[in-house]
């Protein structure tokens, strides 16, 4: 059988397969080169970039929880200028398709980062972080309401011609409404979910376990929530949905495609298996071959709802 066609268009960015890295878990991509050729991935989504370098939160940034982890890194990053100057040429050298995740303290900052990145011809897309729970100005203020999402998406939309993805927060009541707001304001795709706000305390020391007190929950623990929200968003909008949340295996990734995601991003799994993204990609290819499915499009969104379960 011929190799299955896994290519898909993600709001103007055509990728060769639907396995992407999730921002914040993949550094700037190059850190994974000792483990495999990152140009094999549909795209590398880099750690969130701000206008100026950001120091992040004080130590006490991560804690492991049942089948997951909480983080409150605080968006530590090298800033957009160093990214463009130092990282982009190396990503170009390795031939990776790459997407920049961006955030700002204000609408103006989002706009400025997007403007600067729009000057980078090799950049595949811009993903707007409208959902970081760990810094006051990490986008949650914009991401929590349809009005906020529409305003932010509209501002960035007007400042860039790049494919524009908006990364949504799960910490909302109605994800469908939020997704519709992003679509209405000009997003080319949405990605979801970002981490779920959580907390861990030590019953002996009587202290919170994170310096930031609360953090973002990720890992297999959040997968059912992520899957449900991906399904709801995919039903609500016409632009592509990129599913994220707790994906550890090819089977997990396929479930997101089944409920309507056009692609997936793999996050926390990269921490425990640096080859997680390619392992998932290879597992997905093997599945399509076994099932004699010729193209991703023949499988995607194919959730059978009659006589469920």
């Amino acid at each position, binding site marked *: 059988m011929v190799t299955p066609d896994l290519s898909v268009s993600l709001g103007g960015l055509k990728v060769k397969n639907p396995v992407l890295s999730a921002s914040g878990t993949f550094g700037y991509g190059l850190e994974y080169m000792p*483990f495999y050729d990152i140009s094999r991935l549909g795209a590398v989504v880099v750690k969130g970039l701000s206008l100026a370098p950001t120091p992040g939160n004080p*130590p006490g*940034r991560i804690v492991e929880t049942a089948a997951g*982890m909480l983080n409150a890194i605080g968006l530590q990053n090298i800033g957009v200028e160093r990214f463009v100057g130092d990282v982009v040429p190396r990503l170009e050298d390795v031939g990776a398709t790459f997407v920049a995740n961006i955030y700002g303290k204000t609408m103006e900052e989002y706009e400025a980062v997007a403007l600067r990145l729009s000057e980078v011809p090799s950049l595949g897309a811009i993903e707007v972080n409208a959902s970081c729970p760990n810094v006051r100005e990490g986008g949650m203020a914009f991401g929590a309401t349809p009005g906020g999402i529409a305003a932010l998406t509209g501002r960035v939309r007007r400042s860039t011609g790049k494919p524009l993805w908006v990364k949504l927060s799960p910490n909302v009541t109605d994800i469908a409404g939020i997704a519709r707001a992003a679509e209405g304001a000009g997003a080319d795709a949405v990605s979801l979910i970002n981490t779920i706000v959580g907390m861990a305390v030590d019953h002996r020391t009587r202290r919170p376990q994170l310096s930031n007190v609360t953090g973002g929950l990720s890992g*297999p623990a959040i997968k059912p929530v992520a899957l449900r929200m991906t399904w709801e968003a995919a039903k609500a909008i016409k632009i592509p949905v990129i599913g994220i949340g707790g994906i550890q295996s090819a089977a997990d990734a396929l479930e997101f495609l089944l409920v309507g995601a056009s692609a997936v991003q793999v996050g926390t799994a*990269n921490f*425990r298996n640096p080859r997680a993204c390619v392992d998932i990609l290879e597992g997905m290819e093997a599945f399509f071959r076994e099932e004699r499915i010729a193209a991703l499009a023949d499988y995607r969104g194919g959730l059978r709802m009659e006589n469920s379960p």
Partner: protein
Amino acid sequence: MTYNPTRFVTGRIVRNEGRGEIFYRIEATIPEPLRFVPGQFAMVSGWPGNDPLLPRPLAVFRSGGTRGKGKIEFVYKVVGRGTALLSGLHPGETLSITLPLGRGFDLEQAGRTYWLVGGGVGFSSVFPAAALLGRRRNGFEMFLGARTRDHLPPKEWTPGGKAPGRTHFCTEDGTAGYHGRVTDAVLERMRELSPEAASRLTILACGPKEMLKEISTETLKRGIPAQVALENHMACGFGVCWGCVVTLWEGDRTAYRRVCRDGPVFDAREVVW
């Protein structure tokens, strides 16, 4: 410094033995032999399922083997669920290992005498340094501290080498060796040194944070260079998650640096305690 590039490998457990229910020593075969710098570490997992999710950082204790058949050893203490599950794995079962990771001890300075200080399970990153110095016939002394004699590493784990250094055992309850904390033993021994001998001294230390802090403070006062191996909770171990940062001095400012990638060994002068 030469060490192999980082890789992600599957290991097969050869031995996984507990000693006095405190320390475990696990040995596994890996595809190729490993060259590592003492103080470097690995991220290790092997228990089934997603809980706990993350691998555990363990100092590389020993490596060996021949081409096409490498061997690796780790020593660990059961401190939580991950290490408890690790201790329950049997020969023949597999480990997922990312290694070697981080910056190890700098043992390349000419004309130095090294004092190695290990507190608790900290001996696991100090012994590889002792083994290397012993092979090179580079003078060193080793100070090992524990709460009781049962908490000291078994004698047969102590590296030999052509020129084994003098080892000072210290216990807080006095059941073996020097009666008191290892830091005090180091300071007492330091007082015996001539100024000339003290000027050649470099201290390498791994152990509880309080011990490292005190070693740093005391050596800084005396102008003796010290390298400390820090620990922290880690998610990835290779620099991408930014979860394991500590605060370091950079000039008169401070910055958050990763234990896994910028360390785990830091110049004691850099660390903000």
